[in-house]
């Protein structure tokens, strides 16, 4: 199957991707990348798993259009995307809620949207949250890189970040027909985020009161946050051990504490290894919520079990 993202020239024979109705990017917004469920298994050679930051929203968007859950879709950061569909398509948007219009008609989140050939889709700014997922029935069919269509912004591996003028081929891998009109979802993003954490692996590198500080303080999301991690402002977590930590593997959701004592919460494009101690790791069920934290949001941590030290 051809999956060419270069622009078709009018003088040459039509690009096969164009014939199949490759989507035209009119405006990419602040940052839009292609993401699937990532490329786990390469950490030992220094390549992180990457993939959608809010995996639950990616999976839901894919289910809404009848795709396999791991199909590649678009991850919008603060919305702002404009697309033109040369052929009819079925799509769905999930995650951070944005105003959506198809030509001049409003459309809704968490629900399949049918667009006709030639129609334009405009996605506004989210009212809350950061990342919105746009799945197209058939999946985004750019060539996979090392087994995934995810863009890893830390290592630079994966398809390029979306730019105006890019063409996105649509694949044909589907699992069924879209059979729901809307996925009712409790708004996840209202109110302060309360995230569960499990102490360790290096909570013993901190003073005993550091875990209490983490569990009892309000942190605020710093604007210097991205797919690599969320920087948090708030009370410093004080170290008991002041040696240098030899580099060790880090996981998604790790709360790594650099020398200034303010934790960094690692997201999808986190480094494979790190040289600062990790005081605690987010509970798996709160990882998606963490990926929707925006600058200025308040965050509280709930320590889910006592330290094992």
């Amino acid at each position: 199957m051809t999956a060419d993202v270069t622009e078709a020239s009018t003088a040459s024979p039509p690009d096969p991707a164009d014939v199949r109705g490759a989507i035209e990017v009119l405006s990419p917004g602040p940052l839009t990348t292609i993401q699937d469920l990532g490329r786990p298994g390469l950490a030992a050679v220094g390549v992180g798993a990457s993939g959608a930051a809010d995996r639950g929203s990616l999976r839901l968007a894919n289910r809404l259009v009848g795709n396999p859950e791991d199909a590649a879709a678009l991850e919008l950061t603060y919305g702002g995307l404009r697309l033109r569909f040369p052929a009819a398509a079925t799509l769905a948007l999930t995650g951070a809620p944005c105003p959506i219009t198809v030509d001049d008609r409003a459309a809704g989140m968490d629900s399949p949207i049918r667009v006709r050939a030639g129609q334009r889709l405009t996605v506004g700014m989210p009212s809350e949250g950061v990342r919105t997922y746009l799945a197209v029935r058939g999946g985004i069919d750019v060539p996979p890189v090392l087994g995934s269509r995810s863009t890893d912004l830390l290592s630079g591996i994966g398809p390029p970040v979306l730019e105006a003028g890019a063409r996105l081929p649509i694949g044909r891998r589907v699992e069924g027909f879209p059979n729901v009109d809307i996925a009712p979802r409790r708004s996840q993003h209202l109110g302060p985020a309360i995230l569960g954490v499990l102490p360790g692996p290096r909570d013993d590198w901190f003073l005993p009161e550091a875990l209490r500080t983490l569990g009892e303080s309000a942190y605020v999301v710093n604007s210097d946050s991205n797919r690599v991690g969320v920087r948090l402002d708030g009370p410093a977590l004080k170290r008991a051990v002041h040696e240098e930590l030899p580099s060790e593997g880090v996981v998604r959701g790790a709360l790594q504490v650099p020398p200034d004592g303010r934790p960094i919460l690692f997201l999808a494009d986190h480094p494979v290894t790190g040289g600062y101690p990790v005081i605690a790791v987010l509970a798996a069920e709160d990882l998606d919520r963490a990926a929707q934290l925006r600058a200025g949001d308040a965050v509280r941590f709930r320590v889910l079990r006592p330290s094992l030290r």
Partner: protein
Amino acid sequence: MRILTAGSGALLVCLERPEQVAGLYHELLSDPPEGFIEAVPAAETVMVHFDPARTAAPALGPRLRAAAERANAKPEATSTARQEPAISIPVVYDGPDLEDIARRTDLTVEEVIRRHEAGEYVVAFCGFAPGFGYLAGLDPALRLPRRSIPRTRVPVGSVAISDRFTCVYPHVSPGGWHLLGRTTMVMWDTYRQPPALLAPGKRVRFERVKT
């Protein structure tokens, strides 16, 4: 050996000696325990990712201990990576930090080069960037802490040292290691199979290219 919790899907195995890391890593690849997803070797640890739907920390912990014991019992030479011939990396020793390294180690520039070239190295682990291998086996006389002010841009192919490791920078990147020289060998190519020239356990030698 200690096993620490890293969230609900990973355990961090801390080994007594750095040399045990590669052994446990290869043991886990050749005989993976139930629910094993991936292992990430590092300086003194192996991070083991597992599927919480198929195993749990209390069941996996003893299996990791057993794997480490099996690895310790094996003579080093039986690991397949060690039976392969060493990868030979040609180096032009004209790095900007050579004189600084010589001064800090109380050696002549020629002696620094001789000791680096004489080393027999093993990829202890990878990290920092795709294809960035930490090569163990550096002459203890060349052991230096990182530069106090890292460079914002280290050229691709730079051969460098820091602490007990040497490395080749696979990409242009920031970096705090001391630069000894450079190679034209490609450490990482996303579209090559496999993309990384260096993987944990591989043996490496450096060969001096006279200019």
